[in-house]
Every structure is written in structure tokens, then in C-alpha cells.
């Protein structure tokens, strides 16, 4: 008998009829400890310390970080920003985007796996879930149980804690936009305003729903970053990789068995990597779009390798090139310094320095000039020609200021209205200003002039262009 060279593969799972819509499969991620889990908890604490703590900080007589949308003043420690300072937000967003490019080019979806609020809150919610209901297998058993007082108590406790944390999160969020001390006092008498009620509950509901129920669905179906980050990968990007060359063929074996005598790879097929995965994928099938790079599978596989006395790193952060070429660590890290990464870094550093510099060098004074439109020009007593302007003078300091107004650009141009104005702290005011020149001292038409406004102490100074009209 001769064996046929081409073997026909008979699929184990036959073709099946499936719906166009997929029911969510509930995941029970197993808890995991290890290097990357510790890093994730570090970032959970760091981000949440900042988020929950920042609104409580005081700066002088006010909240250190407060976005007062009603008054259109944005307080950031010592800085008072006006809506006119929107460019800083643009700068911040550009820096955020570039950082995302850089981190993704170097090490894939680091943001997703460690600091994204979706991951962070899911991690916290999972921790609560584990404390109340137990780990993966206990949770699966509990869900399979028929309803009972014990089940109700456990589920009730979990949801109570989830909702409490969500409400606290919603409360903190609103505390960035309305003074949190006042809000805290209002919380005891339940006397929030209508919008405060809405946003506390809306943000709480979003936290509860996203971290408690939607979880990986957010990353898989809703998040745009998830999809476009893969466009920033290249073959030298560090991704969570399964070393198939070392691991296959996978299979169960006795712990005492000697690997060299078995016809098996290092993978013991314990499926722990699948059980810990927050998005429910099997990393051994290679890079998949669902992978958020959290490295839970790396941690858990290392513990198994330790137990088996095999070297660690069957699943590890590595690059496609390194995997294909069996590179050493040094070779792999050398490729991190590739032009793409260097260019991203250079632009990022330049932007950060630029933004910081402009924030430090910022003049805490803004001036807008609006010419009166009804009367273009008028002749007044004393043979003078007069133009009228409105100057919006915005004091971006937290002290009352006295500003001096001067104008230049035309022979004999003089201010006929008061030249000094007082503006209160973080206030803005419209000031009518009259400019005069001698009748006939300038040709008919439009002349470019400049307003100069500065505080009396001479610390800040702003020039604004306008025109002076001389009638024909």
C-alpha cells in the first residue's frame, strides 16, 4: 500500500449556519500576577490618584484645577486660561496623538493594555468582582447556579460596590467643572443643579456599563484607536508574541518528563493564556486585532514555565523580525532606534518644549480691538478728526491690574479718552477708546495704526493692529 501524497483534510467543525449578529460571550478573565500585572496596577494607581485627587487640590483661594465653563475661565494651578488660549489644548492633543504614535511604533498597544480608562476601570471592577465572587472558576460556577439567597447577596454586593465607585467617579468628573468642595456639600443634601445631576449620573452610568458589562466589547467594536493603531505597527514593533517555533507541537505531559525525549514543544497546552485574556483570544494563533497588549498571557505563561523548569518567555514581548530571525535581545533593542521612532521622538520633544516655553512666556493679558462701525469718523471741536474703538481688555492674572493704553502709527495720533483702566482679577472689560488727529494732517483713506496696552508696572505688554479712517 502506498500512502497518497496529498491528504484530504476533513474539517472537524463542519460549515455552520451563523447569524449576522453575534451574542456577547461572557468572559471570566482569571486573575494574574507577575511583572506586567504589577505595572498595570502601578498605572491604575497613578492615573486614579491623579483623577480622583486633582480636583481636591487648592491653589491660593481657589481649586487648583477647575474648568469653569460658565465663566469661560480655565484654571490650571497658577495659570488662568481664556477661550482664546484654545491653541494650548490643540498643542496638548497633538502631543497626545504623537505620543500614541511613538509608543505604538515602539511597543504596540501599550496605552490600551496599561493606562486606557477602559482597561483601568475594568481592572478595578474585576478586582471588586474577584473579592466578592471569587476567581474565574468560582464566578463561572456562581453564574451557572440557580438563583438563591447566597447568589443574590453576592451579586447584590458586587453591583452595590460597582455603583458606589461609579457614582464617585461621576462626582469626581463633575468636580473638574464645578467647585468640588461646594459639590461635596451639596451631595449631603442632594441639592445638585439639574446639569450636575445629569453629568454625575451619566458619567457614573458610562463607567458602570463600560467597565462592568461592555468591557472588551468597547475595544473590539467601539474604539477607533484600536483599529488605527495597527496601521502604526511595523515588523520591528514589540508585540505580545507566542514563540511557535519553541512551543509547537503543544501537548500535555508529566512535569517530570524530560522535554528533550518528548516529541513536543514547550507549550503544555494548559490554556491559562486564554483564561486570563481580557478580550478572550488565544494568543497562540498569532497577532489579532483584539489583542490590547496587556501581557496578562506573558505573566501567566511565565509562571507555568517556572513550574515546568523551562526557560521563561514562551509568550513574550518581541517583534516579528526578531521572531523570524531568532534575534537576541540586543539585536531586537537595536532596531528600536530606527528612523521612524527617532523622527517621532524628535517631533514630540520639540512640541513639548515649544508648548512649555510658550506657556511660561505667555503674556497674562489679551486685547481685542473692534472699530465702531456706525460712525466711521467724525469731526470734533478743536479741528480734530476722531475715530472710536472698543478695546476688550482681558486680565489673565489673579490680581487687579491697571493698564495703560497708547496708540501709534500716525503723525499726531493721540488718545482723547482715559488712558488708564482698572480691570479686576481674571476679568475682561470692553473699554471705549477715542483717537484723534489734527484735521488735514493725514491723507484721506485708511491708515494702519497700532494699539499698545500694558500694565503700569511694565510686566506685560500687548500690541494690536487696527485702522484709522480719514474721510474724503
Amino acid at each position, binding site marked *: 500500500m502506498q500512502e497518497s501524497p496529498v491528504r484530504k483534510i476533513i*474539517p*472537524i*467543525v463542519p*460549515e*455552520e*449556519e*451563523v*447569524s*449576522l*449578529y*453575534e*451574542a*456577547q460571550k461572557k468572559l471570566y478573565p482569571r486573575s494574574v500576577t507577575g511583572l506586567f500585572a504589577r505595572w498595570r496596577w502601578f498605572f491604575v494607581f497613578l492615573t486614579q490618584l491623579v483623577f480622583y485627587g486633582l480636583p481636591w487640590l487648592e491653589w491660593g483661594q481657589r481649586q487648583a484645577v477647575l474648568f469653569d465653563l460658565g465663566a469661560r475661565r480655565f484654571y490650571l494651578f497658577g495659570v488662568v486660561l481664556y477661550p482664546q488660549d484654545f491653541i494650548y489644548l490643540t498643542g496638548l492633543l497633538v502631543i497626545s496623538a504623537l505620543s500614541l504614535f511613538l509608543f505604538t511604533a515602539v511597543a504596540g498597544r501599550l496605552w490600551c493594555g496599561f493606562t486606557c480608562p477602559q482597561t483601568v476601570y475594568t481592572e478595578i471592577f474585576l478586582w471588586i468582582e474577584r473579592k466578592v465572587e471569587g476567581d474565574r472558576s468560582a464566578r463561572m460556577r456562581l453564574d451557572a447556579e440557580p438563583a438563591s439567597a447566597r447568589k443574590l447577596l453576592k451579586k447584590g454586593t458586587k453591583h452595590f460596590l460597582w455603583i458606589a465607585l461609579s457614582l464617585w467617579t461621576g462626582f469626581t468628573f463633575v468636580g473638574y467643572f464645578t467647585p468640588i468642595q461646594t459639590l461635596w456639600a451639596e451631595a449631603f443634601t442632594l441639592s445638585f443643579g439639574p446639569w450636575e445631576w445629569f453629568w454625575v449620573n451619566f458619567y457614573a452610568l458610562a463607567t458602570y456599563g463600560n467597565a462592568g458589562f461592555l468591557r472588551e*466589547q468597547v475595544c*473590539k*467594536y467601539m474604539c477607533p484607536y484600536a483599529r488605527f493603531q495597527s496601521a502604526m505597527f511595523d515588523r520591528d514593533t514589540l508585540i505580545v508574541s507566542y514563540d511557535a517555533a519553541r512551543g509547537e507541537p503543544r501537548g500535555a505531559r508529566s512535569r517530570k518528563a524530560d522535554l528533550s525525549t518528548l516529541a513536543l514543544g514547550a507549550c503544555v497546552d494548559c490554556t491559562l493564556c486564554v483564561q486570563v485574556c481580557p478580550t478572550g483570544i488565544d494568543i497562540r494563533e498569532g497577532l489579532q486585532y483584539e489583542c490590547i497588549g496587556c501581557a496578562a498571557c506573558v505573566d501567566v505563561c511565565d509562571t507555568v514555565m517556572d513550574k515546568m523548569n523551562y526557560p521563561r518567555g514562551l509568550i513574550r514581548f518581541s517583534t516579528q523580525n526578531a521572531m523570524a530571525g531568532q534575534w537576541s535581545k540586543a539585536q531586537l533593542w537595536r532596531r528600536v532606534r530606527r528612523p521612524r521612532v527617532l523622527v517621532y521622538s524628535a517631533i514630540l520633544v520639540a512640541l513639548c518644549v515649544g508648548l512649555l516655553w510658550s506657556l511660561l512666556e505667555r503674556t497674562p493679558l489679551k486685547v481685542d480691538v473692534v472699530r*465702531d*462701525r*456706525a*460712525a466711521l469718523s*467724525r469731526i*470734533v471741536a478743536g479741528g480734530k478728526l*476722531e475715530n*472710536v*474703538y*472698543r478695546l476688550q481688555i482681558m486680565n489673565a492674572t489673579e490680581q487687579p491690574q491697571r493698564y495703560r493704553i497708547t496708540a501709534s502709527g500716525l503723525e499726531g495720533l493721540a488718545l482723547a*479718552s482715559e488712558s488708564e483702566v482698572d480691570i479686576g482679577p481674571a476679568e475682561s472689560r*470692553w473699554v*471705549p*477708546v*477715542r483717537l484723534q488727529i489734527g484735521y488735514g494732517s493725514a491723507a484721506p483713506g485708511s491708515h494702519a495704526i497700532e494699539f499698545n496696552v500694558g500694565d503700569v508696572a511694565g510686566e506685560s505688554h500687548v500690541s494690536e493692529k487696527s485702522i484709522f479712517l480719514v474721510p474724503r
Partner: protein
Amino acid sequence: MSDFTGNFWSVYVAVLTLVSIFACLLLLWITARKKITASVDNTTGHVWDEDLREMNNPMPRWWMWLFVLTIIFALGYLVAYPGLGSYKGELGWTTHGEYTDEVEKANKELAPLYAQFTAKPAEVLAGDPAAMAVGERLFMNNCAQCHGSDARGSKSFPNLTDGDWLHGGAPAKLVETITLGRQGNMPPMAAAVGTPDDVKNVAHYVLSLSGSPHDSLRSQLGKAKFTACAACHGMDGKGNQALGAPNLTDDIWLHGWGEQAIVSMVNNGKVNAMPGQAGKLTEAQIHVLSAYVWGMSNKTATLANARP
């Protein structure tokens, strides 16, 4: 014209909206029932252009329920709010109604503030910095368009700071002016005055009243003809605030200075109007504005009143 009076378009829009919504629902129902064959390699078996295969990546089911929710929301919205053609909606909501509600709400919120202001007479209020800050904003938003940001007006728009009043500058008069507006009417007087030369002579007489440069011979001749003007402006030319007739002796020329401007005014007359603000501003706002305007030409009195 029938486009605007008939109800064809209303019905058309309503039917189109409802048909679209139910078409969406139908599409959802069909796709929810449809089954496709997925192979082991997670493709649907559909192949185009030789090797382009369609993957089986189903939508999550909860997403479909979101679609259903939006449809339920849409139907609820269309019952409550105007959206189906000319149907007004059960809530009777209109943009105009919302605007009026907001104005009413703002007025209610500001009522205690304005109550403090209306309790004081305008002369005292002019020395109150808080009231004047409000007055300044009211002036900038409602008056500065014509009278200028500095209230000094321009040609045909009176200067409010010079103490020269066409209709009187007492606070009560100012309230009247702001509330009801004013209509200044100078009729064409050429026929009453006489020949074009007479008009020119009257012009020189008028110039002489304020001591402006003039031809004294023409002025002498014009004096007799001024009787035609005296009915309103008075024999002495000092005007009449009851009629809104300007004082011709104070060297303030609202519509232009010089022989030519005066001749043209006598020949053609002029109608000049200030619109009433009764519908736009509340009584309390007008009270604050009158104090602000009064204060501009009564600086010394204001300072005296401001002293405790």
C-alpha cells in the same frame, strides 16, 4: 403659491419620514433572521476578484438593540416634538417658546439684582459702580450701535455726553425717550422762507446765533425771514424741547455745520428717528440705562451723589 398654502409637502415629509423609519426596522428584522454559512477558516465563502474573500465578522447583538432603541426614540420624539410635516407635537414645543422661556428665566434670576437698582432714583444710581457696570453693558449692546461706544454719537446720531438735549435730559425724560423712541421732524421750509437767496440769508442768520463765522450783511437780511423758523426754534433760536426743536445757538450741529448744511436742511427738511426699546428692554433695564446716560453728562453731580 400652493406650495406654501397646500398641505401636500407636509404630508409628503411625514410619509417619507415614517416610511424611512419602518424601512430601517424592516432591514433590521431581515438581517436578524438571515443566516449565513461560515467555513472553518472563518470566511463566508463569498469570493470576488479571484482571491478577495469575505470574512465572517458579525456585529455584536447589543449593537442591533441599539438600532432598535434609536427607532423607538425616533418615534417617541416625533410624537412629542414637531417633526412630521406640519404636526406640532404633543409638547407644543417651539424655538420661539424656548427663547421666551429663557428670557423669562433670566429676567427672574436677575430680578433681585434689578430690585436693588429700581429702589434708587436715577441720580443716586449713577454713582453706584455695580449698577453702572450693568448700565455700560446694556449701553454697549443696545445703544452703542448708533450713539457710538463712547456715546458721543456722530452725524445725525446725538452726542449723549454734552448736556445738549433735544427732548430734555432729566432722568424721567430719558426713560420716556428710551421707552417710546423719538421722531424728530423738520419740515421743508423753503416756501415759507421765500426765495433761494432768502434761504441763504436765513442760514447766515442761524450761523450768527452761535457766533459762528458768517456774512453779517446776509445775516441782517435773514433775521426778518427767521420768523418762519421761530414757531419751533423760538424767536431767540434756543429751540423747544417739548417739540424736539434743537437749540441753534449752542454751536452743536447734529446734521452738519456750515451754510450748505443749513440751506439743505431748510430746503429739504429732515425726519430723524430713534426706535423705542419698550419691547426689547425691561422697565428696570431702562431705569438703569437712564441713570447711565444721565451720569455721562452730569459727572460732578454723580460724584457728589456717590459720596455716602
